[in-house]
């Protein structure tokens, strides 16, 4: 079809999430048609990001500085830590501007089936952060799955004796969602988490 360079480009693109061989070919072709305006800036951006991005030593967020911009921001409420599974969850929460505290990225959830235990996650660092004092509340913003709930219970068991308030994000009806199309589990969780209006 093309030279080995094109095949290599398509091969690398097809490994990205959301892209298969067919869509990788389309993306590669679009870039190859305008290399100056699309391909070289992308290559430069990829190189810059790979060189500059590092993992925050406090919360495990990705940023160009360590500690990250969130951990270093003096306007943030340092008494509240929101625990998330991955950096994409942190980004999702930041887009809402609903949380003005700090974060802690676990890097996954405990999974008995996949053999992921406490030592495989960034849990010890969270317990150490809370143990250092000054934390009033830990918000568990983990996925509403068996593994997410198991991790929440594991953390709650260890954080409560340290004298901090432990809460978790609500499960229920999404904004704009219609009750009749929700799955039974979500409706049941929403009923159980109802509150007075």
């Amino acid at each position, binding site marked *: 079809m093309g030279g080995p360079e094109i095949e290599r480009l398509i091969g690398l693109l097809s490994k990205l999430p959301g892209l298969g061989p067919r869509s990788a070919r389309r993306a590669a072709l679009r870039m190859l048609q305008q290399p100056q305006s699309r391909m070289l800036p992308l290559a430069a951006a990829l190189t810059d990001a790979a060189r500059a991005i590092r993992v925050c030593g406090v919360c495990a967020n990705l940023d160009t500085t360590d500690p990250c911009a969130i951990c270093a921001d003096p306007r943030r409420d340092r008494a509240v830590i929101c625990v998330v599974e991955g950096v994409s969850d942190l980004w999702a929460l930041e887009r809402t501007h609903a949380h003005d505290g700090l974060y802690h990225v676990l890097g996954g959830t405990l999974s008995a089936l996949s053999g992921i235990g406490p030592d495989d996650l960034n849990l010890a660092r969270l317990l150490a952060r809370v143990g250092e004092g000054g934390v009033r509340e830990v918000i568990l913003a983990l996925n509403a799955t068996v593994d997410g709930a198991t991790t929440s219970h594991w953390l709650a068991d260890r954080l409560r004796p340290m004298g901090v308030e432990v809460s978790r994000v609500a499960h229920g009806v999404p904004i704009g969602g219609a009750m009749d199309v929700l*799955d*039974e589990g979500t409706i049941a969780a929403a009923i159980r988490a109802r509150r007075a209006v």
Partner: protein
Amino acid sequence: MEWEAPAIVLDARPYGEGDAIAAVMTEAQGVHRGLARGGSSRAKAAIWQAGNLVQVRWVARLADQLGSFTGELVHPTVALAMDDALALAALSAACAVAEGALPERAPHPRVFDGLLSLAARATTPDLAAQIRWEAVLLADLGYGLDLSACAVTGDTEDLAFVSPKSGRAVSAAGAGSWAARMLRLPRFLLDGGPGTPPDWRDGLRLTGHFLERDAFGHHHRPLPAARIALYHRVCDLAEEPRPHA
């Protein structure tokens, strides 16, 4: 080839970007795996959570193929049990034990009925029933406990221990100086009562020993982490220091 039946989801591992390889248990098919298309996608991941009761349909061209599942949620067990740490631990442990110990595509109706009953009442975990279910599972696999009489004296009264070697009951008098090496036999396994946290701890230690040695050990696999986590949680309830796992 196809069949449709009520099933309990035992496991769902992500496959590719949005699919999952699911393991379910039905009364007639036993533990059965299949590809659940979209099973780890946002739209369908809620269905394929271990412990949920689903109406499942399996389709394949040939009987020995993996085949694919489509499923509809019947009872959202996981969503209901999610807020209770003990309920979630018990449900996860039961699913992990069934998924790991039972052979695939071999019906075990007694085990299915027991697991269905546990899942249906997952919000109010009955640890005594779960331990009795594990004993039924061991018996179905050919590793049944014999609690009818003392292996030493033949007495049917005062049974207090189980031999970790033979799986037979031993009375307090029959155990003698060997008592410390025996597994404690909780009363609820004899009288069908509800038991207490120390009884549940003893019961989980008892069935856990034989699950680990026989059901999982013969496959050179350890006891599932979810089962060990349940034992640790019950040790906490019984206010006993956790053993080193």
